[in-house]
């Protein structure tokens, strides 16, 4: 009797242990990337041309970035999207004076046609980006003003020599737009990449059916051994956002890489429960109100300050974040990133204090002082896009009503909007600041007085100086100091522009999609080499 019961206890214990072991192992195995599967995602717009050096739309990045590599990239697992790591660069050194950046390239990287990638390809690509020949446009050329020359001393070394120090260059080189092309092809035809694909990336190009889809398949000879995990991907071009949500809901697509609005997220979560994962992040995009400094009464900084003081940003954030793509109350940099404004400093800026009644009283006082009568009317021009321009417009008009301003909204069709701003044909207009990497040198140059994007036409030497100082500061604390002073001048002392609320990015995807981390930029993490599908 005892003999048998002892045996049964043993068996039970062994069984229990075995089960626990199996369960833990399987649990661990779940986190190990699984090979195989085709990722299907929806993209709201289609790429005009295939050359990222000449385009600015995510409609190109989302389907095409997997075919290419860049010199540097941001760490795909870093939520702030601000940590530069090497892509084709294996290692790098920066000279003490910050003027020379030397990169060692990986060996054995092959283009999709079999040719080897060497420094001459990197040099040719960067020459195209920084020193484009006549007839070729490079949209971000101006952000490389500091670069004097790009050298390729040997096949696996590339060197950037700068005219003045610019610590942000490393992150700038991680730009998702700086695809490395083949030098031989560029030498023959600089326009070739506008209509063709030839890169070193984790996925090979299969086909692009216009208006319909883009298909890529796994690159079996990818230099990063063991990657990619996916067999391929399909990007479906779906312009209606209701249809995008429907696609994910019905399981026809796994993910949409840009963003959904809060009600769309709620709809998906309610319908699919734990079959979807929600990833949220503040977005490197923001709407600000631009006031034309050459038109009365907006040439008076008291009036501009008053317009900012009238906004109850915290209440607005609470309510608007339920219905549209905005959330955080922020300064000039995305909250949570290295250069974001500490809350104590943020409160001190005009319109960022918590006592809205005091702010509004102050606003009314300023308007009176500036000679603006009660019930003063002006036209606010807004862009005809549903999220978040329209809700923000309604909110702004309502907030300004609270300080006795009678604002009329004129909505300009999206395609006619930018020419209107450029012409200066506005008193007060909605503008936007969207960046691809969170970095002051990339997000803020438009506020410099002689910038082409300075539509409000403010002329302020102090702010120009502050921008330059923060850009060239080699010491982190010094840079921070100048940046905060810049912010104070922009939003508080002179109130050149009025920041509304930071956009908020919400990506809802099938729970099967793993290995993708959201960042503040919808241009980042689209190489898909770290993404895998669980079962």
């Amino acid at each position, binding site marked *: 009797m005892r003999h048998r019961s002892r045996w049964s206890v043993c068996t039970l214990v062994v069984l229990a242990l075995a089960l626990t072991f199996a369960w833990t192992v399987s649990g661990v195995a779940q986190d190990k990337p699984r090979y195989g599967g085709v990722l299907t995602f929806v993209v709201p717009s289609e790429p005009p*041309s295939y050359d990222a050096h000449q385009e600015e739309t995510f409609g190109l990045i989302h389907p095409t970035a997997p075919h290419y590599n860049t010199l540097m990239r941001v760490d795909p697992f870093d939520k702030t999207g601000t940590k530069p790591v090497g892509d084709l660069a294996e290692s790098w050194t920066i000279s003490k004076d910050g003027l020379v950046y030397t990169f060692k390239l990986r060996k054995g990287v092959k283009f999709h046609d079999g040719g080897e990638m060497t420094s001459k390809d990197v040099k040719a690509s960067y020459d195209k980006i920084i020193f484009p020949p006549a007839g070729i*446009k490079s949209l971000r050329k101006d952000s490389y003003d500091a670069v004097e020359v790009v050298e390729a001393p040997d096949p696996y070394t590339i060197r950037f020599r700068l005219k003045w120090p610019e610590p942000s260059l490393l992150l700038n080189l991680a730009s998702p737009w700086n695809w490395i092309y083949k030098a031989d092809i560029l030498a023959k035809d600089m326009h070739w990449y506008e209509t063709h694909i030839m890169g070193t990336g984790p996925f090979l190009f299969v086909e692009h059916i*216009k208006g319909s889809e883009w298909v890529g398949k796994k690159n079996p000879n990818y230099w990063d051994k063991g990657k990619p995990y996916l067999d391929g991907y399909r990007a479906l071009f779906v312009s209606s956002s209701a249809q995008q949500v*429907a696609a994910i809901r019905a399981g026809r697509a796994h993910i949409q890489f840009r963003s959904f609005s809060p009600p769309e997220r709620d709809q998906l979560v309610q319908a699919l429960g734990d079959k979807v994962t929600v990833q949220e992040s503040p977005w490197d995009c923001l709407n600000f109100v631009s006031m034309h400094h050459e038109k009365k009464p907006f040439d008076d900084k008291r009036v501009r300050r008053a317009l900012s003081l009238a906004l109850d940003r915290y209440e607005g954030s609470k309510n608007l974040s339920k219905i549209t793509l905005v959330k955080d109350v922020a300064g000039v940099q995305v909250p949570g990133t290295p250069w974001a404004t500490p809350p104590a400093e943020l409160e001190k800026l005009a319109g960022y204090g918590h006592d809205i009644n005091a702010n509004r009283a102050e606003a009314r006082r300023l308007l009176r002082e500036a000679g603006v009568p009660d019930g003063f009317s002006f036209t606010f021009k807004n862009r005809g896009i549903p999220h978040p321009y329209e809700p923000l417009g309604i909110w702004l008009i309502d907030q300004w009503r609270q300080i006795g301003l009678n604002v009329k909204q004129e909505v300009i069709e999206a395609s006619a909007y930018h*020419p209107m701003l450029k012409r200066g044909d506005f008193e007060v207009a909605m503008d936007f600041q969207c960046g691809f990497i969170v970095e002051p040198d990339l997000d803020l140059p438009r506020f410099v007085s002689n910038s082409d994007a300075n539509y409000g036409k403010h002329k302020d030497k102090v702010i120009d100086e502050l921008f330059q100082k923060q850009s060239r500061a080699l010491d982190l604390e010094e840079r921070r100091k100048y940046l905060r002073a810049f912010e104070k001048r922009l939003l508080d002392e002179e109130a050149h522009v009025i920041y509304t609320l930071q956009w908020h990015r919400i990506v809802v995807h099938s729970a099967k999609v793993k290995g993708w981390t959201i960042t503040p930029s919808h241009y980042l993490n689209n190489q898909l080499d770290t993404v895998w599908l669980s079962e």
Partner: protein
Amino acid sequence: MWKYLLKRFLLMVPTLIGVAVLTFFLIRVIPGDVVELRLAGDRGAVSDDVLKQERARFGLDQPVWKQFGVWMVGIARLDFGTSMWTGSPIWDEIKLRFALSLQVAIMATIVAVLLAVPLGLLAALKQDSWVDYTVRIFSIAGLACPSFWLGILFILTFLIVFKWLPPMVYTPFWVSPWQNLQQLIWPALAVGYRYSAVATRMTRSAMLEVLREDYVRTARAKGLVHRLILTRHALKNAMLPVLTVIALEFAFLIGGLVVTEQVFNLNGIGLLFVQAVAHRDYTLIQALVMLVAGIFIFVNFAMDVMYAWLDPRIRYR
């Protein structure tokens, strides 16, 4: 009759030229141009000489008359140029979308006719009865609902009740008829229902009039079977106005289903139109207008031919 038809055929030409001229100059009056839109994108600032350079590349810096001449010469050679937004040949941009829109238009017309003819006949035969009222209410309801509202309801019903969505990518009919129909039957039904409204009304009043005609009464008096009378004499003449309506609307279906395409996510001509206008892609807009107008004008001509054939009274004009 042939002289009449020749006259109608020749009249197509000035109309087409008129459309070409109107399009060409109308879209150039719209503010904003493709170059700025391409380059300004999400971030908003490009230097002026880059803009000038790109404009020259598209020939946008030439005087308007010259641009028009170049385009007209191109058309004569059946070369519609390349899209200013993507750089690919126009026909590449259009062909797949045209196939889809054409198919939806044909299917919707079939649905409309299948609904309209029997319903209209029924309503005419039982005029002023509750059958008549029901038919009229049913057909007007199709006209009254905004198509996008209907479409949203469709999609929501699929999702909530059936947890299913029609295929998102277009498969041509000859590749896989089942996939193809799965996607296109729903917009065809929604659109067809709408267009049956007008056709039903037309059939009903045409039948009503014809039923009053002398020759029908004579035929009846002669004792022919009721159905025979209807199908042979009455229907033939009643069909003329119905055909006109169907023809007129068909051309509209090719380029005009913008909202339906958006709601059902169809990669068709309507959406392409909207995108082309948003991008100020002149070459594409021009080509699309000529396509749609061409279809309309041709269908009109085909109707003239049908009329002349079906109604002997017209032949001797």
